[in-house]
């Protein structure tokens, strides 16, 4: 029994990219404890709950963006899709349309964006930076246009207070087993996409096209479809985050999700996902999102201002990648010499 456990543990450690994940979790622990020492409230149960809830957004965005980073691409439209999802669902609900239908419409719109991204990048070979820059503006534009360039009214005005509360509780304010629903939603999606990436054929193909797209193609991998799938994952994540933001505010905000695509990149990169493709584990993204949120939360608790927060986070991002590069080049030198 013990032996079996040990070998399983070894297998886990031996997984490619696990080193970066462990580093990220270690960093998370250090940051968390350091803030806790400065301010005991950081350790309080309520703060932990809040932490989990607010990191959920970054986790989802990070997962979506990580899928693209692993394929060697990027999705700049995630943040705008978040805004679009929030605005579409909120607008429909203020018109008295049932939340489930509103959610479905928002989801379909986001998926359409994802497919367009995937086709532009996968089939027409547009540089992903340019293709998704386009859809970024288009979907932000759509977010503005949905309600005639205005934020929406409270969703309760359309679907009634009871249904509005139910929607808000489901996505943001409610708890299940003592933990905010937001985190459960994020966790379930995380596990789903974790499973998809590490255990299925699609996941394997996502790593393959990020590693060497020509080799993948010659091995019979459908590069276009795989790219589209990766962009669909980020679209789903963006849509859910849009719904969460809508539930949090109880209304649609046109600027919802602004800059989130970059938070996603940051979460992935802190967690050891190479922006050059082919490597990285979603577990790292989890750690990255947690690091990000812990920093924000901790800096908030000790009274640091927004400017300082941004500054520190920027340094952490660069530093974590720098660390990775230094470690890797050290490895490389060792290998080429022996």
């Amino acid at each position, binding site marked *: 029994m013990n032996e079996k456990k040990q070998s399983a543990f070894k297998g886990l450690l031996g997984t490619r990219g696990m080193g970066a994940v462990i580093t990220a979790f270690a960093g998370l622990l250090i940051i968390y404890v350091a803030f806790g020492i400065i301010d005991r409230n950081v350790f309080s149960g309520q703060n932990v709950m809040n932490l989990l809830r607010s990191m959920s957004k970054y986790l989802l965005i990070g997962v979506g963006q990580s899928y693209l980073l692993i394929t060697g691409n990027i999705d700049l439209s995630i943040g705008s899709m978040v805004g679009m999802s929030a605005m579409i669902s909120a607008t429909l609900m203020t018109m008295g349309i049932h939340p489930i239908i509103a959610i479905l419409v928002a989801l379909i719109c986001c998926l359409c964006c994802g497919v367009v991204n995937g086709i532009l990048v996968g089939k027409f070979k547009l540089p992903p930076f340019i293709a998704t820059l386009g859809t970024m503006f288009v979907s932000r534009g759509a977010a503005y246009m949905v309600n005639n360039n205005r934020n929406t009214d409270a969703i309760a005005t359309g679907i009634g207070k009871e249904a509005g509360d139910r929607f808000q509780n489901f996505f943001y304010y409610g708890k299940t087993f003592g933990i905010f629903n937001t985190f459960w939603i994020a966790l379930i999606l995380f596990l789903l996409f974790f499973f998809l990436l590490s*255990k*299925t*054929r699609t996941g394997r193909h996502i*790593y393959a096209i990020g590693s*060497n797209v*020509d080799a993948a193609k*010659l091995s019979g991998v459908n590069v276009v479809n795989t790219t589209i799938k990766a962009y669909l994952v980020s679209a789903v994540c963006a849509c859910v985050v849009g719904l969460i933001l809508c539930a949090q505010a109880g209304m649609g905000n046109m600027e919802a999700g602004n800059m989130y695509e970059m938070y996603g990149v940051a979460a992935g990169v802190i967690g050891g996902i190479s922006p050059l493709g082919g490597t990285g584990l979603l577990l790292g993204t989890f750690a990255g999102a947690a690091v990000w949120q812990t920093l924000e939360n901790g800096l908030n608790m000790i009274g640091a201002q927004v400017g300082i927060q941004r500054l520190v986070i920027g340094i952490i991002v660069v530093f974590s990648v720098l660390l990775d590069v230094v470690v890797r080049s050290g490895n490389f030198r060792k290998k*080429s*010499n022996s």
Partner: protein
Amino acid sequence: MVSMKNIVKNFPGVKALDNVSFELRSGEVMALLGENGAGKSTLMKILSGVYTKDGGSMEIFGKTYETLTPKQAQAAGVAIIHQELNMCRHLSVTENMFLGREKVDGVLLKNNEMESEAAEILGQLKIDIDPRQTVGDLPVSKQQMVEIAKALSIHAKILIMDEPTSSLTAKEIDELFRIIRKLKADGCGIVYISHRLEELQAIVDRVTIMRDGQYITSGEFHSMTMDQIIANMVGREIKEQFPRISCSKGKKVFEVRGLNAGKLVRDINFSLYEGEIVGFAGLMGAGRTETTRAIFGVDPKTSGQILLDDKEIQIQCPMDAIRAGIVLAPEDRKKDGLCTKLSIRHNLALPNLDLLCNRIGVISRNKEDQLCEKAVQNLLIKTPSVEINAANLSGGNQQKVVVGKWLARNSRVVIFDEPTRGIDVGAKVEIYNLMNKLKQEGIAVMFVSSEMPEVLGIADRVIIMCDGRITGEVMARDTTQNEVLKYATEFEKKQQAR
């Protein structure tokens, strides 16, 4: 097994294949020979479904194919092992072998099953590789073995190997040949494309020769002489495969004393003289490339002196070396030697901008034109214009551009690192002539090559390295390949035990 008749393939503006016929029987190794641009790769890409033919007929195992997709070709049993290895470096051996046809149970990947199957195939081939290892961590030779294993795992019966030995050591080549013989005995047909003619006799049964997109001849390998083969490939007699020019040895130009840099450059001492080509022989990984890089200032040195005309010079970075008159034509043309997306003009001008610019840094178009014209004329670079991208040139012409960059400067020492790798016989001779010309001009030439015949044929003096040290120095005239090989395998005890 395969019969291709009167195949025609047109690319915009070029007839890449003109009535080419090709036949492969089971249990044989067929060498497909020809200079670069002869159409060998195009023909094989048609066979493997990457390109579609514009005319002619193609039969694989008696079945006629009008159009063929890569997937169909794979299903028909055709596998291609590419010159530039096509592997996902970040994935494991197993993952690469099963890429695109993973075994699944519902949606779950059956990792264990795939792993054991991969291990079984590797075992059959007697290849010692852990199927769980990441491919990027394996040496190139092992990566190639993985490609072969991958081909076998899809039950390929027709294997196309494009320059399989270009980056292998002698020992690894033996290992590869052992596997090829095994495949042959199992009834596979193998198409073998190589520029290294001397290795053909070890394995090849028949040859097909192509030139300029046309079929020239084919026949039993043993009924042809090497000279006939070469004559058919280049379409003219090459008088000498290794033209050597005698020069009187002049004064010492360049000296390296006690150079150390990392583990593969250890206590290197040598000198170069005017009117002399010094060959550097050795196995892959002997530290020759590393030595050139340390001299040129690419990699940091831990200790050592570099003297030019008996004066010590400091080289911290390539710029220092270039200023002192030491230049390097690196091993990997596409990666280190050229900006492939820039035109020939820009490539030629790049290291000479200081000479081409006026005082405020504006490039003189006139001077640039002159430089390009001179380079194209002197080096016989075959190109319609200097404005086309370096990527579009053949390997031999690319190499000439790499060399041409440096000739505008009055260099004292020119270092060639594997200048003839992957280029055809005709172009090789042109490169040799170029080295001879430099030698006649009194420039010291350092010539690193893994191909023993050319080192012995072109260099005047040969320095042999093994494991980062110089293990021998011989005059090319008085030595044999065996002697050089003996020095090249003089490992230290510790290494032998491994």
